């Protein structure tokens, strides 16, 4: 497979701001299906920024001009095999689905709460084999959905036990064999939590 050889290639300017080429606390990045563009959640500017993968130039913004999008501190973002973007709209406690090609709002689900399909700060998200996993930060759990937003199951609860308990899940990934890997806030010893689905 792959590894980092440590070679630095390039960086964007690093100027904090609201301008077209500027970012304010960017939080996550994903690659579109054709591998031509990457999409950044520009959290502090409440928008998504689309970059050309070949030259790192900004192509366009996906922001609040569509009132249904109207992101508030977007965090995690992922792109499925059909070029649909799934965004953790952390400040609004919902998942927003946006069609990459034209930036069209497609659907959303979630509101603040602790029930199935409700969130308290949805943090990061990944999609794999037609499921979505969302780290529900303040609810100390991972929620798993279909790509349409149908709730499938959840795992994790607040605690420090060995099985099924954790605090403040952040990064989430699913490997080739279906294991979930969760990176927790405040845990710097690189502990993975895994469960086969």
């Amino acid at each position: 497979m792959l590894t980092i050889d440590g070679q630095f290639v390039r960086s964007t300017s690093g100027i904090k701001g609201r301008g077209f080429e500027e970012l304010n606390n960017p939080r996550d990045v994903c690659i579109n299906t054709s591998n031509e563009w990457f999409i950044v959640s520009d959290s502090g500017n409440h928008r998504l920024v689309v970059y050309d993968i070949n030259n790192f130039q900004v192509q366009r913004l996906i922001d609040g001009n569509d009132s249904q999008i109207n992101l508030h501190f977007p965090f995690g973002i992922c792109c499925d095999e059909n070029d649909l973007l799934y965004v953790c709209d952390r400040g609004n406690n919902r998942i927003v689905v946006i069609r990459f090609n034209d930036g069209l709002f497609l659907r959303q689900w979630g509101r603040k709460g602790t029930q199935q399909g409700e969130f308290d700060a949805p943090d990061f998200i990944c999609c794999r084999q037609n499921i979505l996993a969302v780290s529900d930060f303040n609810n100390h759990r991972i929620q798993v959905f279909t790509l349409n937003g149908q709730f499938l199951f959840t795992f994790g609860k607040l605690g420090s036990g060995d099985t099924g308990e954790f605090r403040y899940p952040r990064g989430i990934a699913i490997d080739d064999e279906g294991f979930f890997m969760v990176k927790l806030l405040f845990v710097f010893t690189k502990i993975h939590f895994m469960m086969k689905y």
Partner: protein
Amino acid sequence: MDQHVSLSMAVDDNNNRQQLVSPPVIRQVGQWGNGPLEFWCPSGLAITRNNQHLIVVDSWNHRLQVSILIEEEKFSFLLDRC
């Protein structure tokens, strides 16, 4: 606070139990700062679909950084998010 990107081995116990594991780190890249391969709160990452590049969101430096990937062995990335 750690400001680096780590490469960790995925561990598979071939059953459905939930488990906590601390996989061995293969390699890590980065340190605190604002220069090349330095990070201040790295928050997100993506691997390009041709497996050529790693893009890291360097949140509190308000920028993105790109590094080259090369073929080696099975691994997973772990980002020490803040």
